[in-house]
Structure formats: structure tokens, C-alpha cells
């Protein structure tokens, strides 16, 4: 094995913001005052915030030092399952930072904002083409916000047909956001067990689907990295009872140009532009969660919608059946610009190639590690594969220990303990932007860790050792919350 990428270097200690600075410093240049002072109503005036005063140098060193305590995609492989931590192209940052976009006021007259409206209109078209659905809204600000929008669409659509119904089917492999989003719309989640193959069976859905059930929320490929092979039969069952099929498109990166979600019977689907379409995660957002729908749900999409009229793009409120607004303005436009740039940079061929290589990378990892770690579903995988810590149990080493040790080798851990159907799950999604060499290093690291688990398990339990901080006491943090300084 080559030398692991993880090493130690000189990092700096850095106090909390308010532990540095001195009254009277400033890192801000105020514009020259060109108006007189005007009296303020004293009854209404306050003392202003108690912020520390820092110089620009204080400020810059503070955040540069903090930044060095982070792992990021730009520093190394980040194989978080179902999170699609692919490389974030730098040209996208250039495009979204153009002053014409970055400084644009959202309530400008339409005649003065044609450029961004055209971009949004075209992005909707590309996303509907990629998903194989008919119409889209870009308003939702994140995946879960898209799910909420989708569930609201279920609600108003079914209400327009008579009753919104009260239940929703949610597979046991679903993301936690699914039942949480459904519950905001008053839907009670009915869990559906996946079968021995790790997917939904038509029979299981048939037994639960009734006329008081709004439909089903499927993730396809699911969080085990498996294609829901019975999806068409499942859709037929749901539709036959008057229900709708929701697809959580978090894993769309596996199937661009390969599967047409509309053909599978999907009625509503959300995408995560910060996963599949390469916009950065920003340490937890902002993302964007556009929702694509079939023709029959289009009248209910959020307003305003961008439409083209006599060669001009306008924002139309003229959709009387709409669920209303889900965002103060039109959604996360800055994120949309990045996704748009990504789609235009790759084109049809490139998008399909991205999905193919994402699947190839995952399959390669799965085949190379399946003797080393327990693979609960030994079947062809899509863009991610799920192992468990079962083989390491005899050495009293857990998934947590394994992935903490992985940090010392210079890799971000995979998603762990999810999906819930696999105890001690280790869910690996390499994405297409990792090269064979880096993936080989990752595989070597995990094999080395499996060896260490047998020979020196304490090394894993004490990991990580090379990070800025060692394992943190999360129990104490929750028991006595200290949420501000």
C-alpha cells in the first residue's frame, strides 16, 4: 500500500470570536457620511448588539484557522452514502457570482430580469427532461422542503378528487425526512417492510394500500443502493387505489439518462441540486430541492411560475389551484445557476457518463470489500453500497470505531447506522468524480483497518488520533446544552 493521504500538520489554536478583539477595532469600511444626523425616538431605540470588535487581520486569521479544521470535498474523498458528495466545479461559482445575478433584487420589474427568468425557465425544462416528468417548480430551498412541497401537492390533488386521505406508505429504508415531511401535511406514515432482496415487494404494498392512503414515498435507487425493481407494479397498485407515487430523488445521480421516472409511474419527484447537480453543500446548505411532476399535478405547483409569453419570460400567479408559495421569493437562485451551469457543461452524454461512472465506482468498491466487510445484500448495486460491522463484532469493534479510524487515513467516513434496516450500516457512495487511484487507496485503507481490528482493536477504539480534536462527548453536550457563548 502507498502512503495513506492522511497525515498531521501544523494547525493553529483559535479562540472563540468574542475571546479576541478589542473595543474600538473594526474590519469594516463605512462609506463617507454625506447626510446629517436625524433625531431618533428614544423610547424605541436600543443599545445595539454586543459583538466583539475585531480588526480585518483578526477576522481573516480567525476564519482561515477555522477553515483548516474542516474536511471538505476539495481536500479529499467524502464517500457519504445518499449525500452525493461529488466534486463542485469551480466554473459554477464564477457563474453564480456574476453581479447581474448576485446583486439582482427579486422584485425587479420582469423587463429588467429577463436573463435570470430565462435561466430558470430552461433549468425547469432540463430537470423535467432528466426525470422524464412534465413540469417543475424550483421554489423549494432544500430536499426536505421539496418533500414538503410534494406532500402538499398530494394533499391538494387528492382533495380536489374528493378527500386528501390520511395515511402514506413509507418503506423502512426511507430517509427520516420522508415521514417528517408527510406528517407536516397530516399524513400518518405506514412503514412498508422491504423484502429479503432489500427492495419493496408488490405484495407488501398491495396489503397496505387502500383508499384512505394517499400513496407511497419511494426512494429509487433506495438507500441500500438497490434499484427498486418492482417499482412499476408498485405504482400500478397505488394508482389503482387512486393514490400517487412520490419519488425521493436524492439518489438520482445513479440514473441520469438511464431511467425515466415518469415511465416508472412516478407522479411527483424532488431533486437535490446540491447532490446530483454538483452545487456545494456549504457545510449543511444552502441546497435546492426542485420538484418535478406529471401533467395531472402541474396546475397545483407553487406560484409564481416562470412562463414564456410572446417571447418574454414572466412570473405568473395565474394558477388558481396552486398550493401557494413555499418560499419568500422564487427559491435558491444562486444554487440554480450552479446546477444550470453543470448541466450545460456536461450535456446529455456527460450526465449519463456521470451516472455510469458513479455506479462503476460503487460496484468496484463493493466487489473489492465484500470479503473484508459483511455485505448484507450481495446483489448488483447502483451508486452506493452498504456494508456492516458484523465481521468485526468478535473483536468488539463497531462501525463507529471503523469510520473514526478511517479519518486517520485521510478519508471522510461514509454514512453510518443508516439505513436502519442494516444494523451497524456503513453506506458508501464514492460518486463519479473519484479516480481509480483514490478509490484504490480508500479500499486499501478499509482493508488495513479490518486488519487492525483483528490485531490491534484498541487503535480503532481510540481513533481518530490525527484530527484537531479527538472523539467528542456528545452525551454531555445534550445533557447540559451550552448553545451560545
Amino acid at each position, binding site marked *: 500500500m502507498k502512503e495513506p493521504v492522511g497525515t498531521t500538520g501544523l494547525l493553529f489554536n483559535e479562540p*472563540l470570536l468574542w475571546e479576541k478583539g478589542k473595543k474600538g477595532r*473594526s474590519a*469594516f469600511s*463605512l*462609506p463617507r457620511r*454625506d*447626510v446629517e*444626523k*436625524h433625531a*431618533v425616538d428614544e423610547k424605541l431605540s436600543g443599545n*445595539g448588539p454586543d*459583538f466583539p470588535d475585531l480588526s480585518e487581520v483578526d477576522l481573516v486569521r480567525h476564519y482561515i484557522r477555522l*477553515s483548516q479544521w*474542516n*474536511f*471538505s470535498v476539495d481536500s479529499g474523498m467524502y464517500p457519504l452514502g445518499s449525500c452525493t458528495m461529488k466534486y463542485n466545479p469551480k*466554473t459554477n*461559482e464564477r457563474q*453564480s457570482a456574476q453581479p*447581474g*445575478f*448576485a446583486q439582482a433584487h*427579486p422584485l*425587479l420589474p420582469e423587463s429588467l*430580469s*429577463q436573463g435570470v427568468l430565462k435561466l430558470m425557465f430552461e433549468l425547469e425544462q432540463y430537470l423535467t*427532461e432528466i426525470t422524464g416528468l412534465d413540469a417543475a417548480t424550483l421554489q423549494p430551498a432544500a430536499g426536505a*422542503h421539496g418533500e414538503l412541497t410534494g406532500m*402538499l401537492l398530494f394533499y391538494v390533488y387528492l382533495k380536489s378528487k374528493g378527500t386528501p386521505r390520511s395515511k402514506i406508505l413509507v418503506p423502512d429504508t426511507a*430517509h*427520516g425526512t420522508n415521514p*417528517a415531511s408527510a*406528517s*407536516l401535511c397530516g399524513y400518518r406514515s405506514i412503514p412498508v417492510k422491504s423484502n429479503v432482496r432489500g427492495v419493496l415487494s408488490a405484495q407488501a404494498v398491495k396489503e397496505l394500500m387502500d383508499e384512505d392512503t394517499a400513496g407511497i414515498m419511494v426512494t429509487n435507487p433506495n438507500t441500500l443502493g438497490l434499484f427498486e425493481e418492482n417499482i*412499476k407494479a408498485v405504482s400500478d397498485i397505488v394508482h389503482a387505489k387512486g393514490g400517487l407515487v412520490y419519488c425521493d430523488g436524492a439518489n438520482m445521480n445513479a440514473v441520469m439518462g*438511464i*431511467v425515466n421516472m415518469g*415511465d416508472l409511474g412516478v407522479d411527483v419527484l424532488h431533486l437535490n441540486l446540491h447532490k446530483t447537480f*454538483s452545487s456545494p*453543500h*456549504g*457545510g*449543511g*446548505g444552502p441546497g435546492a430541492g426542485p420538484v418535478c411532476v406529471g401533467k395531472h399535478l402541474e396546475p397545483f405547483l407553487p406560484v409564481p411560475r416562470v412562463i414564456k409569453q410572446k417571447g418574454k419570460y414572466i412570473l405568473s400567479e395565474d394558477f388558481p389551484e396552486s398550493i401557494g408559495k413555499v418560499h*419568500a421569493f422564487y427559491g*435558491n437562485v444562486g*444554487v440554480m445557476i450552479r446546477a444550470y451551469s453543470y448541466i450545460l457543461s*456536461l*450535456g446529455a*452524454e456527460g450526465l449519463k*457518463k*456521470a451516472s455510469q*461512472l458513479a455506479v*462503476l465506482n460503487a*460496484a*468496484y468498491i463493493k466487489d*473489492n470489500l465484500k470479503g473484508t466487510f459483511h455485505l448484507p445484500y450481495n446483489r448488483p448495486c447502483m451508486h452506493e453500497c452498504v456494508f456492516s460491522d458484523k465481521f468485526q463484532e468478535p473483536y468488539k469493534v463497531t462501525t463507529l470505531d471503523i469510520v473514526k479510524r478511517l479519518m486517520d487515513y485521510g478519508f471522510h467516513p461514509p454514512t453510518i447506522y443508516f439505513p436502519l434496516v442494516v444494523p451497524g450500516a456503513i453506506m458508501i457512495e464514492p460518486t463519479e468524480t473519484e479516480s481509480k487511484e483514490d478509490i484504490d487507496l480508500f479500499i486499501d485503507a478499509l482493508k488495513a483497518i479490518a486488519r487492525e481490528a483483528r490485531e490491534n482493536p484498541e487503535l480503532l477504539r481510540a481513533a481518530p488520533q490525527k484530527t484537531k480534536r479527538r472523539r467528542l*462527548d456528545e452525551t454531555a453536550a445534550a445533557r447540559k*446544552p451550552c*448553545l451560545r457563548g
Partner: protein
Amino acid sequence: MRYLPHTPEDVAAMLKAVEIDSLEGLFAHIPKDCRRKDALKIPQPLTEWELNDHIDTLAGSMAVSPQYKVFMGAGSYEHYIPSAVSFLLSRSEFVTAYTPYQPELSQGTLQAIYEYQTLATRLLGMEVANASQYDGASSLAEAMLMAIRVSRQKTVAVSRAVHPSYRRVLETYFEPTDLNIRELPYLSDGTTDLSSIEDMGDLGAVALQSPNFLGCIENIEALKQKLQNKKALLVVCFSEPLAYGLYKNPGQCGADIACGEGQSLGIPRSFGGPALGMFASKMKYVRNMPGRLVGQTTDLDGKRGHVLTLATREQHIRREKATSNICTNHSLCALAAAMYMAALGGSGFKELARLNYDKSEYLKTALVNAGFKLPFSRATFNEFVIEFPAGFKKTYQRLLKKKIVAGLPLAGFYPELKNHYLLCVTETMTREDMDTLVKEVSS
């Protein structure tokens, strides 16, 4: 493609290792009738050169400063962003990291968000702030849902002077529930009419925005008085938090929950998003709060560190019983706000707020002196409403041609406010810009 590192030899070697003969073969296990038959109808890939040209054309068609003078706020404000803030915010280590679920590798993000939470509580005068929501509108909707959970009531009252878009989002969130929204009208001075509150039964929350959408500072303490013996929580919403550099903050006025939009704090307008949902409350309600929280703790060596905490409120643990469905939030925007607040410092924040106020008062006075009507007498911060004479629409259009956007016409939001315009002045407008505006609207 420059983001796809695989050479044909790599692909061949990897396919051989997985014993599959082609890239297409990787999908052979997908039932045939589930596989896409046609190719994607997406344009041919653009080179970076072509993409730059294309984007420059689109962005070039937009009306922005310095070519345009846009006297428009209404929930999206033009403030100067210090170069240091933009520079620091572009650090890859912040931008390309995921949610800090693995704290040992995310201490940078975690400490920065802990600092954001702290600065947010200091700005808003509250005891605890979360790591962010999407925007002001979703913050208000989540605040009302939280107040309902705390108070166990069924009705909320919202001022008509709360941002109209926020109210619409609230309506959307409430549509599938059995909860009711009552609207509080505004008075002739531009503040909310609180006279009906006493008679409202079942009341779980009352929300005011201050400064409100009409620019006016609300009398929140009066509402606090009225709620003393009620279960209802006092929710204070905002779209321009810079105002709290000059005026009392929500906490000082007795707010139980403070929520709103933080775009003003160093975030570009970007045609309305991404922005920053700010969310804060009293500590006693923390377990009912939506969204992520960062807390302080120690590591195995006893050194100070930070982690995500109180996660049992959240969807990935609690699923359908979570306090919210939010997962991805607006972390990088919160970081921008923290950097901005730190760049200004307490002293700079107050000075900047005062400058916004003084400039806005300058324009307000000049317009009144020029004979235009100020319909609402209440104190304002950096936005105010002017009633222009009937037929002003034509003048407005003429000014657009001169690259001046003379405020936001209010008739679309408040049909009774015909010929009323909401004008905004921040530190980015000079005295000369304002003099030109006064001259043009008067001629």
C-alpha cells in the same frame, strides 16, 4: 469531461474487476421496461469559454447597481459586503464540506456556527438561536408551528403588516392542518391594530414584524402587555435585522420567538435566494425548536470542541415525530452572517444602522418637502411608504428608462394602497442619488 477522471484504461480495468463487460452492463439488473429508451434531450456540452459567454449574456441583461439605482428593499436589501467576508466565505473548506455529522473533521464549521448562534442571540436579544432555516418566510411558518406545539392552541394571529410573501408561505404550511390564521389589520399610523387580541380564544401565537413591511416600528411592548394572561406566544418577525443596531431588539420587547430574514447580514440578494432564515427563542422552549443546534463540549483529552446536539428533536432520529422536517439548512449563509457581524463589530453595526436611518430620513424629508404624502407617521428605519399623485405609474416607467427604480408599488400587495410606494435607502445610496430621485419624481 474535466470532472470525470476515468481514462478508458481505468474503465476497462474496473469493469474487469467487477466482471461486467460494458458500462451499459452495469444496469443490466434493472428490468428492461424500466430502462430509458431515448437519449436525454439536453444541449451539446459547452466549453468553459462558451459557458462564460452564455452566462455573461444572461447576467448582463439584469438591472443592477452601479448602472441602476434600485430604491427597493421589501425583504431584500442592498448592503455593502466587505471584501474580507466574500474572500473568507469562498474558502473551499467551508464551501465544499457536508453537514458536520462527524465532529472531529468539522470543527471549523461547528465552531463557526456556534459563533453564529451566539451572535444571533446577541443581535436579537434571545437566549438560543438555531443554526439557520431557509428564509424569513419559512422561519415564520416554523415559528408559528412551534408556538402551537408549546401553547397547544389552534389559532394564530398575524399582522397584515407582516411581509405579504411570508404570510402566504405561512398559509401554505397551515393549509393541510386544522389550525387557523387570523389577520390583524394595520392602523393609520402604520402599526398593527391590536384591539381584537383580547377577544380571541384558542390563541397560540401572535406575530408582528418590526420594522414591518410598511417600514414602521411596531409597538411590541403593548402586545406583550396584552398577552400577559394568555397562553399565546409572542413571535417577532423581521426582514431587516440591521434595524436592531438602532432600535430595541425582539428580546428587549419581550419576544418568545424571534424569526426572520438575515440576508442583510452580508449575503448577496441573488434574486431572492439563497438567503438566511434566522430563528431564536427563549431557552425554555428549546426542545420544541426546529432545526439544527450546535453545542459546546469537550473531547477525550478534555479540550473544548463543538458538536451537533439535541438531535432527538430532528427528523433523522425522531422521523414523523420530529419538530420539523428540515435537514439541509442554510449553513453557509449563516457563516456569511457571522463573518459580517464580526467584521462590523458592535461599534460598526451601530454606526452602519445609524447611517441607514439618517440617509433614509434624508430622502423621506426631501420627498415630503417636495410635496409628496407620508401616509404613515410612525418611526421607520431604512424603508418608508410615500403616496405619490395619481398617474405616478407613468413617472415610474420613465424613471426605469433612466435606470432608477423608484421603490416598490404596493397596490399589488395591498389593493387599498394605490399609488403608494415602499422606498428603501441603505448606505449604498449617496446624497446625490437621492437628490436625483427627488428631482426626477418631482418633474
